[in-house]
């Protein structure tokens, strides 16, 4: 692939790439570091990118591999092999029985990155289970399991469950309408 064409495509993916980094790190500075490393790696390994395949997925794979590599390294240095420290420090959101976006964001932040990653890839970006499994280097069953656990945790954190009626607030209505209207930009 021509490097200038690749650069143009790379630039086109930058904002989504940074948002994906944010979904993993939940920290702007760390997300910027991760994106910077990803761009440098991608640029230096451009010859391994197969033209005609999905560059965004390729970039996501590089980015998440870098994230987990750094995380493992940090966990070894802090003697926290399971990465539990950050989770233990996070606070549960306040409950008021309604799905408030600010509380939802806090709940999302408390999830393990493996679940945030799959929720983002499948729930937000609409990648298939197969595509997400390929990007994450795991089996499809693992993707489904992480997705379910992530959604269950978010529902639980927000005091919502399948057994409880969902209050049809304006926000809920707007959410359904906005999805129905095609959220693709």
């Amino acid at each position, binding site marked *: 692939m021509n490097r200038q064409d690749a650069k143009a495509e790379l630039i086109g993916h930058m904002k989504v790439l940074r948002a994906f980094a944010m979904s993993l790190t939940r920290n702007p500075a760390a997300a910027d570091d991760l994106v910077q490393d990803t761009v440098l790696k991608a640029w230096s390994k451009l010859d391994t990118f197969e033209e005609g395949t999905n560059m965004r997925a390729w970039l996501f794979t590089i980015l*998440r591999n870098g994230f987990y590599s750094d995380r493992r390294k940090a966990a070894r240095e802090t003697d926290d092999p399971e990465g539990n420290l950050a989770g233990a420090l996070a606070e549960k959101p306040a409950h008021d029985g309604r799905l408030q976006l600010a509380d939802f964001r806090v709940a999302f932040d408390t999830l393990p990155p493996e679940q945030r990653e799959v929720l983002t890839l499948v729930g937000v970006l609409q990648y298939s289970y197969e595509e997400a499994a390929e990007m994450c280097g795991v089996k499809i069953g693992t993707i489904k399991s992480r997705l379910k656990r992530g959604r269950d945790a978010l529902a639980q954190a927000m005091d919502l469950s399948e057994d409880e009626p969902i209050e049809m607030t304006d926000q809920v209505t707007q959410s*359904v309408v906005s999805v129905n209207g*095609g959220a693709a*930009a």
Partner: protein
Amino acid sequence: MRLFHKTTNFFAAVNTSQGTPLPMPSKSRMLKSQIDDNLRLIFEEESQADLPPRLQELLERLDEIDVPVGVASGVSDPKTEKNS
């Protein structure tokens, strides 16, 4: 450029053109939709933010970066590196 990989139509499975009443989506679908929509709102907000200056500078200077022939230092092939 499209933000989302595919588009979603929540009522696609239940919509009809016959003028018949639409059945209410199941609670689990409503819940899933509500969660995914909030996730989408968060992601959309973050993906619309301007890039910080240092990333913009990096893109502008990308052409100046020497690309090692063959093996790039510290670079792993995402297709062969498997993580969690």
